Structures are given as structure tokens and as C-alpha cells.
């Protein structure tokens, strides 16, 4: 009798223990996303939804309100996830090269066959679609309406430049921007963007284009090596920064006037300074704010975080971001994005700069992680100039 009772207790204990362990494991599994690192990402204008394409071709839709995510496809082009401005629709391409614009509810708004894209954007009215192929060629439209915008040599492109071509377009569909590698000093008038007889592209650096005519407006020069640039939602400002630590900005109404962003600890480099290289007088640090440790001028990406007023600059191997206000070269504030989990800014992952995305309207920033398919989401408060991490999935 005693023995039977012991046995009963033993089995109850074993089952209970197994249940506890199972619950812990289930919880562990459910709290984590099982996908490869994010390669490209977009945030809806409302800030509620995030779409991400992962290295293992997963396409995941994240719901910030519900703190849930769902895998929509396991055949997504790594560089294709993006949101359509002003809508709840997102853009992606599958590995059969079909581009789809669909709402977060699953309604398909557009679907067409295209070449494998290495960066694409679409306007809110879905009428302007720009895409880059693997050789840096940029096209407008799709299907019968497709025509080349930039096709002037095989490099620098995605494979060659070590990063994909970054395309961005303002909300008014006035300008779009291409950015990739270095700059080029030849005049636009002397270098047609459709001259594919030459070996090397003349539009590798940051170039501002007219979104209507699809013609280059200005080459925005001064960056070095791998460069990321973006245009403000209202189309007034272009900001760029690169792997050499050079940060620049332009007003699109005066594209010939280049402004330097202040480096975090040194200030603004004065181009016309008469002093020898290395002389501290070559720098203006008059309006620098106190910078915390851990910042890095070598830049992975820049992204607008509050309409066209504020943007963030993300340094390589750094968990800090610098906040800038458009029109001013001086950093306004610095944010600690958190050391753990390690963000996509760590390592030499310049080709993953599209794993950083924002909704400037909602003040939402989403970032991929260095390894693993997780995501960190932040909310910007424009009144307090604060950035708070609101969701982390590992």
C-alpha cells in the first residue's frame, strides 16, 4: 500500500515536472522568432506594422500593438521588404521574382513579374515604382511601362559595391535618391546615365533625381566608400554618411551647397581652412554637445525619425545613435539603443543597412539584430527628444 502510494506520488511529480519543463520550453520558443537575420525592413506610416525580409528568405509581418508576428512567406527576396508610404500596404518580391503590393489584411493591390530587385520603392499612389537590378541599373515602372533610368556601366552595384543600392523617394514624389559608393566628379551634362558602353558607372555616389522626368538633378559629392543616404519625407533635405565617417547634408533647392555634419567629438571639418592637415584649427567645435562614449562616426545608415525635422545617424560597431535636426550640422542628442541584443550596426554589415527602418510620421524606429532574426523597436518622443525601446524579440 505504501509502495503504491509512493509510486503514485512519483508519477505525479514526474508529470508535473515534465509539464513545467515543457511550459518553459514552449514559452522560450514562443517568445523568440526562429528566422535568420533581417536584411531589409519597412515600417508602416502608422508605426503599427513592420515588414521584414530575412536572410533565410522569410517574410515576417510584425504587429507592434499586439506584440505578435507572423511569417507570410519563406520565399522572399532578401532586399525587397518595404512599406508603401501613407498606406497600410507593403511591398515585397518572392524568389520567383513576382513583386506584390498587399495590405496588412492580405488584400493584394498590385502584383507583377519583375527582375530580381536589389532595392525598390513605390509611391503612395502606386504609380511610381523604382527598382535596381544586381548591376546597379535603375528602372522606372514594370512590365510594359518599364524603362531604364540609370544604366551606365556594371559597377558599382550590389555585388560590386558590397552593399545594395539605396533608393529613397520623398512623399510628394518630387525627388528620388540613389546612393551606393564613393562619388564621381564628372558633370551630369558629360555623363549620361544611360551610357552603358563605358566600363564604370558615373553615378555610384549620392545622386538626386527628378521623380517625374527620371533625370538626374545633382550629384551630391563628398562621400567616400560605402555610403548611405536618404531624403526627407517633404523632399527638402538629403543627408548622407559613410564608412569613412564623413557626414553631409544638402537642401534640395540648393544642391550645389554641401554642408558637413559635425563629428561627435571633433566638430565640423572646415573645408577651406588654410591650416595644414591635422591642425585642430581645421575644426569648428563651437556648438558641440557633450558626447557619451561609444559613438562612432563610421556610419552604417541614416534615417528620418520625426517627419522631416529630425533624423538619426547610426555608427558602425556602436549601440549609440545621434539625433540631428535638419538644416543644422550639430548633433542634438545621443541615444543609447542598448547593448543587448547586439544590433545590426555591429560587424561590417554595410549591406544590411536596410535592416534599419523608420516611420518618420509615427516616430517608430525598427532595427534588426547582428545575429538571429530578432527585432528591436523604439518610439521617438519629439517633445522630450527621447527614444525608448518598446519591443524586443530575440
Amino acid at each position, binding site marked *: 500500500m505504501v509502495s503504491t502510494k509512493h509510486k503514485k506520488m512519483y508519477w505525479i511529480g514526474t508529470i508535473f515536472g515534465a509539464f513545467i519543463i515543457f511550459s518553459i520550453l514552449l514559452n522560450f520558443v514562443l517568445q523568440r522568432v526562429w528566422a535568420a537575420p533581417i536584411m531589409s525592413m519597412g515600417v508602416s506610416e502608422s508605426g503599427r506594422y513592420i515588414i521584414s525580409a530575412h536572410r533565410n528568405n522569410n517574410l515576417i509581418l510584425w504587429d507592434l500593438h499586439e506584440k505578435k508576428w507572423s511569417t507570410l512567406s519563406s520565399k522572399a527576396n532578401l532586399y525587397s521588404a518595404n512599406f508603401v508610404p501613407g498606406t497600410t500596404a507593403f511591398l515585397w518580391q518572392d524568389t520567383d521574382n513576382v513583386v506584390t503590393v498587399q495590405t496588412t489584411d492580405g488584400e493584394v493591390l498590385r502584383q507583377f513579374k519583375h527582375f530580381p530587385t536589389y532595392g525598390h520603392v513605390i509611391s503612395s499612389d502606386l504609380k511610381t515604382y523604382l527598382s535596381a537590378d544586381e548591376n546597379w541599373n535603375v528602372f522606372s515602372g514594370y512590365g510594359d511601362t518599364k524603362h531604364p533610368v540609370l544604366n551606365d556601366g556594371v*559597377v558599382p552595384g550590389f555585388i560590386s559595391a558590397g552593399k545594395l543600392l539605396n533608393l529613397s523617394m520623398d512623399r510628394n514624389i518630387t525627388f528620388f535618391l540613389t546612393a551606393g559608393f*564613393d562619388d564621381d566628379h564628372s558633370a551630369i551634362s558629360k555623363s549620361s546615365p544611360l551610357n552603358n558602353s563605358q*566600363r564604370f558607372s558615373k553615378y555610384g555616389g549620392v545622386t538626386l533625381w527628378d521623380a517625374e522626368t527620371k533625370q538626374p538633378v545633382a550629384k551630391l559629392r563628398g562621400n*567616400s566608400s560605402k555610403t548611405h543616404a536618404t531624403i526627407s519625407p517633404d523632399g527638402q533635405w538629403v543627408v548622407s554618411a559613410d564608412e569613412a565617417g564623413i557626414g553631409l547634408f544638402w537642401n534640395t533647392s540648393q544642391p550645389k551647397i554641401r554642408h558637413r555634419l559635425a563629428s561627435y*567629438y571633433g566638430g565640423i571639418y572646415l573645408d577651406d581652412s588654410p591650416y595644414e592637415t*591635422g591642425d585642430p584649427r581645421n575644426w569648428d567645435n563651437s556648438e558641440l554637445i557633450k558626447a557619451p562614449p561609444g559613438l562612432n562616426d563610421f556610419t552604417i545608415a541614416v534615417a528620418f525619425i520625426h517627419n522631416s525635422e529630425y533624423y538619426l545617424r547610426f555608427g558602425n*560597431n556602436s549601440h549609440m545613435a545621434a539625433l540631428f535636426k535638419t538644416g543644422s550640422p550639430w548633433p542634438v542628442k545621443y541615444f543609447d539603443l542598448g547593448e543587448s541584443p547586439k544590433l545590426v550596426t555591429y560587424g*561590417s554589415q554595410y549591406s544590411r543597412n536596410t535592416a534599419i527602418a523608420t516611420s518618420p510620421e509615427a516616430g517608430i524606429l525598427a532595427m534588426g539584430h547582428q545575429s538571429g532574426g530578432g527585432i528591436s523597436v523604439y518610439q521617438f518622443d519629439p517633445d522630450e527628444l527621447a527614444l525608448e525601446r518598446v519591443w524586443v524579440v530575440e
Partner: protein
Amino acid sequence: MTATSNLPFSPSTAPLGAHGAPTCKHETASVLLRRCDNLGRPRAFINAGSIKDESGKFVTAEIQKGTEHTPENAEARFAQLVTGKAKWHWPAEPEGEHLIGFDTVSEQRRFAPGEALSEGVELTVIQGERKATAIHLPPPVVIDLREETPASTDLLTNEQLDYFRANGNNALVFIHGYNVPHGEWGKLGWHSSKATVWQDPQTVNDEYLNGAGAHNWAVHMEYRLNRAAGFDGENWMPYSRIINISWPGNTGATDFMQAELNAMAAGRRLAPLLQQLAGAGIAINLISHSLGARVALTALNILGTVGKPNMVDHLFLWQPAVADNALTNDSNRDVHPLGLGVFPSAHKTARKIVVLHSRGDGILGPDSNESNDWWWRLLSPASWAVAEAWGLATADDPMDEILGKLRGAYDKKWWTFPSFLDNGFGPAIEKLYKNYLPLTFEARPPAPRMIAHRPPSEVPYFRLKNKVKENWARLEKDILTEADALWQPCIDCLRKGERPPEYTLLAPLNHRASISPQVARDYVLRLKKLAVNNWFPEQAPRPALGYVGFKKITDEQGIEFDRFLYESMNNGSFIPVDQSQWLSSHSGMRIPSEEVFKRSYETAIMRRIISEGEGFGQY
């Protein structure tokens, strides 16, 4: 072979008036063969080979005896040939000048080097005189800085200079890295003839086809650079030769400091070559690999010191095995105990300096391969060992991998392998000053007793101490004498574009244009300080530029922050290219992956040379 026709028809090969006649009754004719290079310049015939005509007879040519490249010397006349189909067979002479084209009035044929060597070139002998042109690739250019040779051999010949002038008026100089022997050219397929261009080793061993040592690097680099510029790999007409520098960096695989000394001595000899090119108005681009950076930076530092600004258009330092602050303008930032870590004037000589670095380089730093995911770490040690062994066996450059297992051989550069744990600078210094040994003795407090009663065992100690003192006095005197004697001659030579004298006792300072008595005295002090420390440096070396790039030294918060380097990046003079994502070994550019080719060769190097610089050959 590719052929294109100049005419809308092919000339008849049938001899007029001899239809149906036996071959012996065919009419005879001649062939006038001209020789030129791929730039169209006449090249003298040394041996024009022979033509086997339709009757099977071999006919040799009449050629001029002159070796100058005049139009007359570039002609060979084959007479008394039977009309009809014939074949031209030629010896692979001059050596290394491969046949790449054969033009007649009706046809242009193009060959890969060596392609038509066995079977000969078909041509049709027609009545009268058939004119044809044989097009050869110019010979390769290798400047050997290994042996003690007359200064003139460090320079290009007039003929070579003319070639680069005619070939776009630019020249690309390549300097190989550490531990590369001089080697030799490979063979053309199964022929005994030397191959001076890259051949596809799919079926035959790479070393057999593409040579060994510096020659192997030469054919690989020249080929890839041409491909990056636009050469399609089939039509060799636009192919450009580069200038390959061979220097004695093969110091037994482990004596890095000796290799550094050799690099600086070679850099001294390289400076006049750069002056020669610049003096001829030829634009220069320079690419160095690994410790070849020290050769390049020595030459540029010397030329920068004597006031030769922007002599080099682009300097590309590919995985440079020098300190990350090597390009600073401030010699006080040098942490090398003997003062050979920085090249303060080198930046003046190059318009742009591009640093291609990678964290995947297991030689220059601990390999931080980002692909080593958690699953990899979970593998059992046995599986790991098997995988590593497989990695070694399949590595392109096994020495890379073996040295990489030491978790970054460069960090240990102040040690001497294999006894790197306990020797410090000792072996290299003692080799350098072998006539002044001993220079150290084991210091210990004198015994508290009268000298007269010193036990016999202490007598050698005092003798040794005195001997060391004498040696130091003698060495110091000789070092100062050398500095005095060579100071002005060095400056004079460099001003005249001649090879500057090489320092022997002051060899660690050979990267300087000249050494003033004050610098020499400072050097002696450094040397003594090192000796007191039993040849051990007090500071660790700075990380390699080829591993970290400028990232550490331009960290504005760091105590090592170098404003000059930081500013040079901001004004676009220094350009970092982080290749960590695609270059995963120290010598991965020799046989590059597609990614390395596209991202490093095409985008980071050739695009700059062609689009922003002075061009590459005719591109």
C-alpha cells in the same frame, strides 16, 4: 582562337593557271611577315621561325640582324614558297612575348597566349607577295630588388619606359608581400616555353602553369587587374603589362623583423624607379600586398621627405602588414622601440591612399569570421578539428592558414618564430650586429667583497661586462660614422633620381631618406634601452592597418586618436575599404572569389584608377 574578316569574301587559294597541276608545278611566291606588339609598334625579329608550304617544305626567313625595333628589323621575308595552304611555325621567342594576333589583309585572328604554338598559324600563300602581321604581347616587367646588382637594373629600360608611355602613359606597380620567394615563370601548357601570363589551371596544377613565388603573384595580379579594367579574357589586344616588384621578403617564414628590414632596403631601391616613371611623365598607381606595404611606404616616405608631392596617383594598400598609424605625419606617435613603425612623409607622395582591410584576415589579427555561428561552436572538438584540417588542406595559401592558427601572426611580429615566446628582438638584432656581440650581459649586483679577493668565477663576469661596454662604444661610433658619411650622399642621390646608399648598421631606419647624426644618436639610445630590456619591447605593437583599418586610431575618444589620419579621411585623401564581408583570408586576392574580384578589384581599385585617376593601360 577568334577570327574576324576584313573583306566580304575570302581570296581564292587556288593558284592561277595551275588548276589540277601537281604541287611541284605550283607557282612560287613569298610572304612578308611583320612583327609588332599589341600597341602596333614594330618589334624586331630575333627568329622568325619557318613556314611549311603546301608541298611540305619548310622555308625560313630572311631577317635583318638588327635588334632595334625599327620597321626594317620587324620584317621577315619568306621566299620560294609554293602557293596554297601553309602554316607558320615560330619559336617562342623572344621569351615571354606571346603571340596573340595574326593579321592579313583579309582576316584578323586572335589567340590566347600559347594557343597556336603547337599547330602553327594557318595562312594562304598567294601569287606575288602575301603580307601578314604577327602581333605579340610585350614581355613582362619584373624588377628584381633581391640581389646586389648595379643601380641601373632597378630601373626600367628605355624600351620598357617607351612601352608604358605608349600604353596610356600610365603604369601600375605591384609589390608582393611577406614570405614570397622570387620563383619562376610557369610553362605554356605542356610546352617547355615559359608562360608569362595567367593560364586557367582547371586541368593542370596552378604552379606548373602559372609559375611560382613572385612570378605567380605577377601573373595572377596582372590578369585580374586587366579583367577588372574590362579585358574579356579572350581578345588579348588591350591587355596591359604591369610592373612587378620582387623583393626578399622570404626570410624563412618566421623571421618577420628581418623581412621588415629587407622591405625597407627594397623600398629604398624602389624610390628611383618611381622617380624615373614620374620624370618620364608617366602616371603611377601602386598596389602593395601585406608587408609589401612597407616597401611602398618606404619609397613614398623617402620621396615625400625630399619634396616629391603627389608623384603617385593612387596607392592601394591591400591587407597592409604595417601599424594602423603607419600613415601618420607625426613620428612621435611611433610605438616601435627602434622607430620604424611610421612613415611620416609617405602621405605627401600619393594623391590618394586607399586602405583595403579585413577582419577576416587570420594573419593580421584574430580571425573574426562572422559565419562562426552558435551551431558551429556547438560542434564537438573532434568535428572542429576535422573541419580545421580540411580547411588547411584546401586553403589557397596554406601558410596563411597555418600562421592564422596562431591567432594573428602579425600581433606577434616583435617575436621571432618559432621561439617567439622568449627571444624578443634578440635574433634579428644579433644578426644585424653580429660583429659587435656581445651587447648584453646578465646584470647582477657586485659582490660585497674586495676585488683582490674576488673568486675566480667572477672574473669572466667583469670581463664580459667590459667587453660589452667596448662593443657598445665601438657600435655607437660606427653608427654615428655611418650616419655622418651617408647623410649628404643620400640627399644628393635622391635629388638626382639615383639609388640612395643603403644603411647597414642603421638598417632599421632605411625608411628614412637620410639619417642625421641626431637621429642616429637617438637610435643608439633606443637600442640601448631595448638591450637593457634583453631585447624585449615595453609596448605591444599597434594592430595591423590591414586588419583594423583606421578604426582604432581615428576613434575620437581614444587616447591614441590621431587627428591627422582622421582629417585625411574627412578630406578624402585616405579612403578605407572594409572588406570583412567578402575577403576572408590574407592572400585571398591572389585567386579571388567572385565577390573579391567584383568588390575589391573592380569597385575599390580599378574603378578609382579608371574613373577618378589616370587610367590603366589603354583603359
